[in-house]
């Protein structure tokens, strides 16, 4: 079977070899194009490795300030309610500097879709600790391994968002073909919830960062399946009408 | 040119009194500025506004030499009476009559709080004060002020009848407590 590249993935991505962002970009493009949403899609793109996306992703977009992608998406969606509006952000962007914007877009049940790529590190800046870094994980700012006593435990945003009246909440993984297919379904469901007017949808994707994890691409995939998922279980957590 | 300060406790309607005078001035085609005290300025016991009314272009909206002071509490008298020009007008609630006043100013007094309460419109004391101001002849006449008051309440979508009634009583019951010094 010939694999056709989505039209939106018009050029080679600029991510490191084995990076999960390339997969995330691809399934997002597939979801948008298979549902005909690519013609009316607008993205608000986070800062970090996410900010490499506008160069190679042929969908209308805005490069948001660091952490503010959800707020930019809110501005877009409120003005263009018929567009499929998404925020695309990493863990530093959405959960550290942008936690306030992430939470308030959800609290107001804004009709946007947030695509959250969790690779447990600040990739672009050289592998510093992120809110999602696992306990004991060595990073360039936790050289002895993350100490929960000093830095808090890894932030599981799904646990927090579950308590809100939002439309859709899921966590997938980019660590294998079956998981990627499932993550793609989650994305489709998220955009369906947005189009139905149910409100805020959020899809987290566990994603490998071989460069900063110091692993080969295949070991990074195994690490997600064997270790990362113990802290961040996958699945659909909310699926409904939000508070409409 | 009239530089006016309206001052009292928050809730006594002195900012509104200033707004009514500002609207009256606007209707009469005059230049006018109104600026309120707000925030920490108001914690000293007075809510006040500065009003400048002129046929000419108005510079600073802040009043430094007062032509007319409308004061509904003692703190306002204490704070602003020293800024009254010689021969300027002080309009007070009759409850303040016992205080000591400068000899070089005019004083018009009216039992604004009492009239308003007896009229079943306790918030209409400010309208009584405006009645006394009109009676003094120092700024706008009776018809002009009443017109400004009606226009003001209309613009807020509120009925002005009860306040106009307080205004009329204030006009009729106001008394001149202290006349202008001979040299003015």
């Amino acid at each position, binding site marked *: 079977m010939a694999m056709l590249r989505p039209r*939106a993935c018009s050029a080679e991505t600029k991510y490191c070899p084995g990076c999960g962002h390339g997969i995330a970009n691809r399934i997002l493009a597939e979801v948008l194009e298979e549902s005909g949403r*690519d*013609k*009316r*899609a*607008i993205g*608000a793109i986070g800062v970090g490795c996410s900010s490499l996306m*506008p160069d190679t992703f*042929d*969908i*209308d*977009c*805005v*490069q*948001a*300030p660091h*952490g*503010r992608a959800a*707020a*930019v*998406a*809110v*501005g*877009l*969606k*409120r*003005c*263009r309610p018929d*567009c*499929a509006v998404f925020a695309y952000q990493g863990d530093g962007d959405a959960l550290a500097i942008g936690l*306030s*914007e992430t*939470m*308030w877009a959800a609290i107001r049940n804004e009709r946007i879709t947030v695509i959250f790529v969790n690779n447990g590190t600040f990739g672009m800046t050289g592998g510093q600790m992120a809110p999602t870094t696992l306990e004991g994980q060595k990073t360039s700012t936790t050289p002895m391994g993350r100490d929960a006593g000093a830095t808090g435990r890894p932030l599981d945003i799904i646990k927090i968002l579950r308590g809100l009246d939002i439309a859709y909440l899921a966590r997938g993984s980019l660590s294998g073909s079956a998981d990627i297919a499932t993550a793609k379904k989650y994305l489709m469901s998220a955009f369906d919830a947005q189009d139905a007017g149910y409100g805020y949808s959020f899809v987290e994707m566990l994603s490998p960062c071989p460069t900063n994890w110091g692993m080969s691409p295949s070991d990074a995939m195994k690490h997600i399946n064997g270790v990362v998922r113990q802290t961040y279980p996958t699945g659909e957590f909310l699926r409904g009408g939000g508070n409409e | 040119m009239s530089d006016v300060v309206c001052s009292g406790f928050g809730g006594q309607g002195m900012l509104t009194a200033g*707004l009514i005078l*500002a*609207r009256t001035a*606007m209707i009469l085609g005059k*230049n*006018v*500025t*109104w*600026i*309120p005290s*707000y*925030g*920490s*300025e108001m914690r000293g016991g007075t809510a006040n506004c500065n009003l400048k009314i002129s046929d000419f*272009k*108005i*510079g*600073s*909206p*802040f009043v*430094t030499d007062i032509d007319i002071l409308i004061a509904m509490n003692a703190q306002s008298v204490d704070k602003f009476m020293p800024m009254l020009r010689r021969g300027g007008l002080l309009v007070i609630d009759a409850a303040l009559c016992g205080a000591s006043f400068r000899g070089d100013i005019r004083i018009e007094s009216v039992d604004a709080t009492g009239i308003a309460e007896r009229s079943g419109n306790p918030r209409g004391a400010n309208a009584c004060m405006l009645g006394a101001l009109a009676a003094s002849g120092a700024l706008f006449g009776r018809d002009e002020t009443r017109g400004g008051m009606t226009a003001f309440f209309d*613009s807020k979508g509120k009925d002005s009848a009860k306040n106009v009634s307080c205004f009329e009583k204030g006009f009729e019951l106001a008394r001149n407590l202290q006349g202008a010094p001979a040299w003015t």
Partner: protein
Amino acid sequence: MKELMKGNEAFAEAAIRAGCRFFAGYPITPQSEVLEYLSRRMPEVGGVFIQSESELAGISMVYGAAAAGFRAMTSSSGPGYSLLQEGISYIASAELPCVVMDVMRYGSGLGDIFTGQSDYWQAVYNGGHGDYRTIVYAPSSVQEMADLTVMAFGKAEERRNPVTILSDASISQMMAPVELPAMACHDPDAPAWALKGKGNGHFKRHTSVMYYMNEYDGYVRAKYEKIEKEDQRWESLETEDAEIVLVAYGISSRICEEAMRSARAQGRRVGLIRPISLYPYPVNAFDGLAPRAFLSVEMSALGQMARDVALACGMRAPVYSMLGGTRLYSCSDVEARIGEILGAAHGAF
């Protein structure tokens, strides 16, 4: 027909009449009337009002709305204006239009809420990072607030750049009769930069324009040189024969105009330059003037505008400062300072 309005309300209503249909902002004294007014008014005209979780979020929402082709704005004061700088830099770098009002209160840190002019450097020389400027208009009356707000939206689109309305607590809290502009329409689908999904065409992206430009350095320099050449605005009063020229904007210019009239009545030859655009600074206003002295008057303790006066007049005459801060100077204070300076100048000659 004239309406009696606060400066803040005139700003909000004029924006609506200029076709602004998006506001996101956060309460702060002495600016909150803008939110209160628009929370009621925006829904009446089918626009969007959002009370944002912070100024950081508010300006980012404005960024999104501007990218969608809408006329969008926010407003704040001192501490909140600091938080807006992040988004303003992004919007400037993406060359999108928006209008931002800063209602100056006095002081650094929390400061206080009384009137001041201590955000001049921040507004005029960019509180945000990078190589950009924002066009800055400083109204000195409620009427001018309305007029400049309408102009700001047009200028923001013409120059594809944020425009700042630099107000102060006095101009914003003051009420005066105002002739409101007529209702204008803005079609958000019309601007070339409006995002609405790529449809069957080519996609658009809004990010720093420098990424996709070969000669960015020269381009950005030329952009702002053109603004500096063409967009200066000011009012000159009786400067031709003046021995001393006052220079003041916003609330200070009102006090100075009163002082100037009073001094003129006493036979002193005093003039006034009132900058309306603070960026670009109206250097042309100083052409050909040769007074004995310039006096820059502002409500900041450090003399934030004074050096711009010195640059603008080329130091052809001594430039003095009259500074405020926590203290509000009056017309007679300015007159006294004029007397001092002229006395000293005469003494020296």
